[in-house]
């Protein structure tokens, strides 16, 4: 059982986390991950409220935990403390809204074109800024008129899986809210790639991973979502069916956050955790043999790859890179930034918008300076945010791989 708060004793105050923190490096409103986290937590009794308002500046990107050489769960301590702070103060209607992408998707997709038109109009954005403090320059996703589950109805299965279902070469696809409601085309591409590599793809029952709720301090609801996902997915994992996702933040929740941040550590959650793979992690680890046999079509282009902060926390390196590097003609630049700034819903908030932009600034400048044709990134909010601020097209790496596999 890993309890983030108990790791504070391992902190030597070396400040490696502070010097790597993307937020502390652009604003002194944030005292830094060490100061608000392990340092402050040592002086708190259990259940004593965190007393440092500066905590709210933490974007939850997780870089601090990643760089800590002593295993201090800095980000996890801070996310928990931030939630505590939120729950003791007033919560904003906005935070409840932006942390429920699934609900928004369900409500809006029947009227998708109307919803998209009004959300992209300036007066609406102005109004959203005024009434809900939603950063009027932050990109909001567009709703698809038909969800991925609707389009792939034949692949949707019930839980527990039918005993007749063969687990061999079967993949349970965790599409997340984004590819279900906003970018179903991406989900279809992912499924097609997996099928071309000989996999039988099924869509198990699932709901929003709950990460946006968690980031906004709404841990109780996040825990409810997590429990639902764990109980729905565990029967597949028990049958030896891997769970594969294309959004690095959703998969991180399944792997890590449910257990460590939300405290749901049991056999079921551990099983879901160890059975979950990032899409490219799955391709490079489990399907390496099939991938090696592929002959990629040349793609003459220059691209910049930005691995999302959430992907870094998986502890698997950047598996998409190894496949992208095999595409003939594709010249890759690697992002020099650890985070693009959006951090899920952080950059959507008006009071955080400048800091979020400043965090991403070096990335935007690098993209412009290197004159790439497009940018690649594995998380949806990063893609929308980077595209907004660079004016460049930003794709999921799997879109490019699909192209090189002659799928699109």
């Amino acid at each position, binding site marked *: 059982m890993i309890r983030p708060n108990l790791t504070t004793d391992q902190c030597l105050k*070396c*400040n*490696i986390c*502070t*010097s*790597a923190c993307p937020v*502390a*490096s652009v604003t*002194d*409103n944030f*005292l*830094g991950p060490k*100061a608000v986290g392990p340092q402050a937590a040592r002086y708190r009794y259990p259940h004593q409220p965190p007393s440092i308002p*500066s905590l709210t500046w933490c974007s939850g990107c997780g870089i601090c935990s*990643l*760089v*800590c*050489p*002593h*295993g201090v769960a800095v980000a996890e301590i801070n996310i928990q403390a931030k939630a505590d702070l939120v729950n003791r103060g007033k919560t904003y209607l906005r935070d409840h809204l932006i942390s429920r992408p699934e609900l928004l998707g369900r409500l809006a997709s029947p009227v998708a074109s109307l919803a998209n038109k009004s959300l992209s109009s300036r007066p609406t954005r102005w109004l959203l800024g005024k009434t809900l403090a939603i950063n009027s320059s932050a990109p909001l996703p567009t709703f698809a008129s038909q969800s991925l589950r609707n389009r792939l109805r034949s692949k949707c299965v019930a839980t527990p899986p039918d005993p007749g279902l063969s687990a061999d070469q079967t993949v349970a696809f965790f599409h997340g809210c984004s590819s279900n409601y906003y970018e179903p085309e991406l989900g279809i591409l992912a499924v097609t790639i997996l099928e071309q590599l000989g996999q039988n793809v099924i869509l198990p029952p699932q709901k929003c991973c709950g990460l946006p709720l968690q980031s906004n301090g709404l841990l109780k609801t996040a825990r409810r979502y997590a429990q639902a996902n764990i109980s729905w997915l565990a029967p597949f994992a028990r049958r030896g069916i891997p769970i594969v996702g294309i959004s690095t933040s959703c*998969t*991180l929740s*399944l*792997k*890590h956050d449910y257990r460590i941040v939300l405290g749901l550590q049991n056999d079921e959650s551990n099983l879901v*955790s*160890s*059975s*979950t*793979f990032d899409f490219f*992690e799955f391709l490079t*680890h489990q399907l390496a043999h099939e991938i090696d046999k592929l002959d990629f079509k040349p793609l003459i282009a220059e691209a910049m790859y930005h691995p999302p902060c959430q992907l*870094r*926390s*998986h*502890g*698997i*390196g*950047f598996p998409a*890179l*190894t496949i992208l*590097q095999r595409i003939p003609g594709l010249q890759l630049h*690697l992002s*020099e930034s650890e985070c693009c700034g959006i951090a899920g819903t952080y950059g959507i908030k008006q009071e955080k918008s400048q800091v979020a932009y400043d965090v991403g600034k*070096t990335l935007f400048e690098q993209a412009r300076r290197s004159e790439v044709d497009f940018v690649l990134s594995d998380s949806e909010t990063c893609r929308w945010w980077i595209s907004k601020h660079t004016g460049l097209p930003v794709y999921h790496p799997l879109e490019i791989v699909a192209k090189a596999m002659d799928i699109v």
Partner: protein
Amino acid sequence: MTEIVVVGAGLTGLIASILAADRGAKVTLVARGRGGLTLSHGCIDVWGRSTPSRALSRLRMNHPYRLAGTGSLRAGLEFLRALDHQADYPFIGNISRNLRLPTALGTIHTTALAPKSLASGDLRDKTPIVIAGVDGFRDFYPEFVAANLHKAGVSIDDALRLPLPLSTVRRDRYAIDIARSLDDSHFLDEVARIWKSRLSGIKRLGLPAILGFANHQFVHEELQERLGLTLFEIPTLPPSIPGLRLERLLHRKAMEMGVFVIEGPKVLGRVDGSTAAPRVSGVVLQTAGGSRTLTADIVLLATGGVMHGGLIFQQDGRVRESVFDLPVIYDEGRKHWTASSPLETQPYANYGLSVNEQLQPLGADGLPIYTNLFCAGGLIAGADRSGEGSRQGIDIATAYRAIEAALG
């Protein structure tokens, strides 16, 4: 293509990875957290006690330098120098005569190579020195530095404090904050303007190491020119900027050369006994999700010694090697680990693995335990690296030797 896994991303692991990639191997570098290098002064100590080139030939046979050979040291240093030169971060110095650099404590640090901005503070150069701190930075006291240097027989003309153009300051400034501010040309302009009048008549000025991070070279040269004097830097408390600069440079170089970097997971050794000869089959990574196996032809341990995670000092008085549980040379019983005074040579400093000239860890029978397992850096027994002032030299020499032995 030979597949090599390097464990540990300190100076040793980074240099070894770059060397291996340079020789055409497929390299995976795995590290848990960032550490030693980012905390270091960013110089290359080879033999601090006396003239390195002369002292090295007189060492015991089982000293890491003797095992790796002075040829490896020279070649490794040349390789590092070429890398740093390419990256426009040149190192000054040689192993025939140490540089004598002032520290933030006012003591004298003898080192073989130092980045240009530090090397300009060489006390063998008799140009008069003024030491300056900056307002709002609590990790550097110019008066204290000057007074202690004076005691050490170095005359310092003056100690003064310089203001920084800051509007509001909401928290303590870390060295990295000021370095990043100076990367910005407007801030740099302003600093040059307000410092100019205060520094007339000064020939050589020592500052804490804050002269830019990403744009260091430019900041250093520009400020020297604008102020019309020689500026040198003194490394401050960790994480020190020169350490961070070198880490960033090597990390990038490794990525650029196609090294697959995995940050985050705990690493355990894997021996599956599938071959007749005693060999390791790779490592197992404990990622955010499940355990992932990484097979390799060769594994290089660069996990470091006592302070860096390579050796685990247990409550029960035993010392263990953290990845493969290899036999460690140490004194049984906790009371034997330390000397009676903290200022004496500590017995634990010499603990580590016994290795042969190929830097393969040896068993009790004096034979390599696994034919494809190598180690380098602080993990090797037989050197009191802080006492000798040999830390980085050993890292580089053994990294070079291990890669040469492993890849031929």
